[in-house]
């Protein structure tokens, strides 16, 4: 490896020779840049300056460009500057960089208050776009479903079963575990507070109503949005990035029918099943805690449960499940298809798929609550 680069100044008559030595390579770029910046200040002090590169031991693009940059800025300062002593190999490199036009590139988009306000405005206006996008996707999925109903051969059973395994069967352990724990916690908290009034047994009412009507399905829907909604977005998004969806379309297949319908169907079937299993696990967990912690033995628990809840509670809960599944699926698919070419965009849309999915699930739950209250269920 050759030595550190230097740039010596040697006066010759009324001119000046800048004598470059050592290795002018990327490794020494920071040093070189400082040296060249110093030498650039010589502009205007002498009528002519020669940059003598004959003692440069090694030169690469960085060095060549810095020599060329020095020549240019000296010339601009009214000095007659030239480069001398380049070996044949190196002079072709300098010729190469000589073609570089060095207009400073201005960075665009700076952060301003107006820009931030504009951003907010665009986001608000974007909400409308999101809703329209969701409705469009709902329409497209329903149309594809109709198409499949008329022509059942177009239905992709294998794909649907595959997705059902992914979103339902493989989700069972984690869903059951989490809902079981939530059931335990609700029951423990209930007993802890109800005991002050000597009303331990009412924990069964609370647990039953809460789990079957609200918490069971809501929690499971949120878990599914995080687990399967994100997977759908990532799958569809990376297929979009690699032009697989375009390829499908050019072969005469409808991506909605081939990719999205099986996924939607799998999700709509999976969520009620998971919600039911989740509710059972939560009740079991709650019952266990009521027995071990609250001293409510299983027989008393079941008797009380039978009195406290009716089939209505269960129906209210389970009816919400497929609707929430549809919302999660549609949000996930819209976001997946909105992915642009970059890895960053895939990440953004997956995040937004989960966030929007959970948001819409909770909104839907509110809408259902009002609806069931007004029909007296």
């Amino acid at each position, binding site marked *: 490896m050759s030595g550190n680069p230097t740039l010596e100044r040697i006066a010759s008559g009324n001119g000046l020779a800048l004598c470059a030595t050592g290795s002018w*390579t*990327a*490794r020494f*770029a*920071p040093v070189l*840049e400082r040296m060249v910046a110093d030498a650039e200040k010589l502009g205007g002090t002498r009528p002519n300056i020669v940059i003598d590169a004959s003692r440069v031991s090694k030169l*690469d*693009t*960085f060095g060549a*460009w*810095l020599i060329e*940059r020095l020549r240019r800025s000296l010339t601009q300062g009214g000095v007659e500057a030239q480069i001398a002593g380049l070996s044949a*190999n*190196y002079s*072709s*490199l300098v010729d*190469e*960089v000589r*073609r*570089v*036009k*060095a207009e*400073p*590139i201005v960075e*665009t988009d700076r952060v301003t208050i107006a820009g931030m306000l504009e951003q907010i405005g665009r986001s608000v206006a974007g909400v409308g776009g999101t809703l329209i996008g969701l409705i469009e996707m709902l329409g497209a999925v329903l149309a594809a479903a109709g198409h499949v109903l008329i022509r059942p051969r177009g239905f992709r059973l294998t794909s649907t079963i595959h997705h059902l395994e992914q979103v339902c069967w493989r989700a069972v352990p984690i869903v059951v575990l989490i809902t079981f724990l939530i059931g335990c916690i609700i029951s423990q908290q209930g007993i802890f507070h109800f005991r002050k009034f000597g009303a331990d047994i009412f924990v069964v009412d609370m647990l039953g109503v809460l789990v079957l009507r609200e918490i069971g399905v809501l929690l499971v829907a949120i878990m599914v949005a995080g687990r399967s909604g994100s997977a759908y977005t990532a799958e569809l998004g990376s297929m979009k*990035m690699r032009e697989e969806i375009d390829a499908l379309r050019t072969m005469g297949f409808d991506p909605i029918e081939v990719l999205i319908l099986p996924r939607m169907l799998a999700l709509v079937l999976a969520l009620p099943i998971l919600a039911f299993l989740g509710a059972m696990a939560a009740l079991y967990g709650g019952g266990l805690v009521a027995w071990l912690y609250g001293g409510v033995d299983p027989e008393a628990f079941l008797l009380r449960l039978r009195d406290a809840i009716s089939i209505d509670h269960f129906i209210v809960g389970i009816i919400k499940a497929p609707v929430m599944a549809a919302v999660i699926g549609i949000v996930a698919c819209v976001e997946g298809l909105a992915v*642009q*070419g*970059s*890895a*960053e*965009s895939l990440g953004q849309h997956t995040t937004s798929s989960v966030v929007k999915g959970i948001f819409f699930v909770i909104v839907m739950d509110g809408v259902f609550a009002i609806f069931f209250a007004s029909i007296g269920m």
Partner: protein
Amino acid sequence: MAGEISDAIIRVRDITVQFGKTRVLDGLNLDVKRGEILGFVGPSGAGKSVLTRTIIGLVPKIAGSIEVFGVDLDAASAAERRGVERRWGILFQQGALFSSLTVRQNIQFPVREYLKVSQRLLDEIMVAKLGMVGLRPEVADRYPSELSGGMIKRVALARALALDPELVFLDEPTSGLDPIGAGDFDELVRTLQRTLGLTVFMVTHDLDSLYTACDRIAVLGNGKIIAAGSIADMQASQHPWLRQYFHGKRARAVMG
């Protein structure tokens, strides 16, 4: 077989690579001389890319040793390895540009990480590199997804050359380029080799590149180097695959 070369920049000895039960490389030996352009050919699926990826450390080998710049990569410390990595540049087959960075950021990324230089110099070097690979500075603010296949190749080469490496690996650099672009590319590789003393390890199927750009050609088959030498040696070879490769219809067309 390629004899011992004292000035080898890459020295591969008895490399064996296996995926499951398939043995892709089987006791392979290869030397690459400093300052040469080595063209690397072989049938599709013979393991050309695997060898490249093994040398740069992306595919684990089950036996053998690899020396690059005289450093044994298995024995090297993390710092030594980084030192080696800073001195080579790699052009992947699909470009492998960072999709969430612009062209400018892609090219500047290695420079920014390794050298403490001003933004101005970064921009100027970026423009110079773009010019070298035949692109206009206007593409600097585009994202990889907004580039054509050929442009991606060129930007990826510019990124591979960003730090002025001593050794570059090119995995099918001219595939996906139009013939004129491919010709320019060969020319560019030649110029860089002349001016920077670059060593080039080029996996290619482009006969034109083999004829015009490469100093030496190595042929991979059955997990070994079946032949290595000049283009004339290749044409004189009696190996059936080589005969087909260098005397087939397309080869005749290239030779005129």
